[in-house]
């Protein structure tokens, strides 16, 4: 039962965040790049003021899978690197923590671009 509730929270919060994105698209005609940038900045902000971890505790993948989690992860890396390395951490931290995701997206994107052909849009 408890597990079911956890999954329900993930579904509801994740769905809600995506719906906000869709509302932004419908009302402001924003392009997907702007939507994604906006959500990354929201994540950076939430992590910067230290709220993200509290949300993440009960929302789980609901907040970590949306790109908000990517922004939060960038900032989390920057902050923890500053704590351990000082000023150097400002430059090394953010990409270290998100290296896996960025590299995976580049690697798989490149491989699949070599394998597959473009599907003409109708």
């Amino acid at each position: 039962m408890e597990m079911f509730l956890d999954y329900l929270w993930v579904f509801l919060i994740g769905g809600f965040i995506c719906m906000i994105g869709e509302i932004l698209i419908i009302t402001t005609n924003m392009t997907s790049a702007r939507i994604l940038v906006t959500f990354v900045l929201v994540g950076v902000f939430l992590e910067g003021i230290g709220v993200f971890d509290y949300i993440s505790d009960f929302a789980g993948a609901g907040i970590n899978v949306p790109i908000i989690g990517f922004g939060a992860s960038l900032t989390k890396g920057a902050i923890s690197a500053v704590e351990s390395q000082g000023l150097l951490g400002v430059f090394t931290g953010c990409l270290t923590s998100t290296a896996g995701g960025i590299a995976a997206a580049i690697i798989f994107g490149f491989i699949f671009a070599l394998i597959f052909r473009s599907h003409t849009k109708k």
Partner: protein
Amino acid sequence: MNENERVKAYNKYVNAKIPKTRPFPTLFNSFWVGGLICLIGQGINDLLLYLVPNLSEQAAWAYTLIILIFIAAFLTGIGVYDKLGKFAGGGTIVPITGFSNSITSPSIEYKSEGIIYGICVKMFTIAGPIIVFGVVSSAFVGLIYYIIGLFM
């Protein structure tokens, strides 16, 4: 007809030609598709923690995101993800799978322009701004933490 009127007339024409999406169904679809993608992410994460007992929570999230990115890149490759995107809008853009799609989709689209100028350059048309804004803003937050740390 002066410049202003012509622009107005043109905008009117463009607005009439833009395909109208009915807001309610797309909102609903974006909600449940987005929620479902997050749910799949949570499922993968829990499964990883269950299968590999000494995996740290942070590493489990990293693997989860990489798996989701892989799935989205593959679905983009076979042309399914873009169809899903038409159906669910924000539900497929906002999750990390949308980030993966934003890299794979233009790479495939511009493949015909060559590997360097096609795939590698166009790969970052949408992901580039995300990475730039993300890195600059989080470095800024890190700098603030550093400065606060100096005085504490």
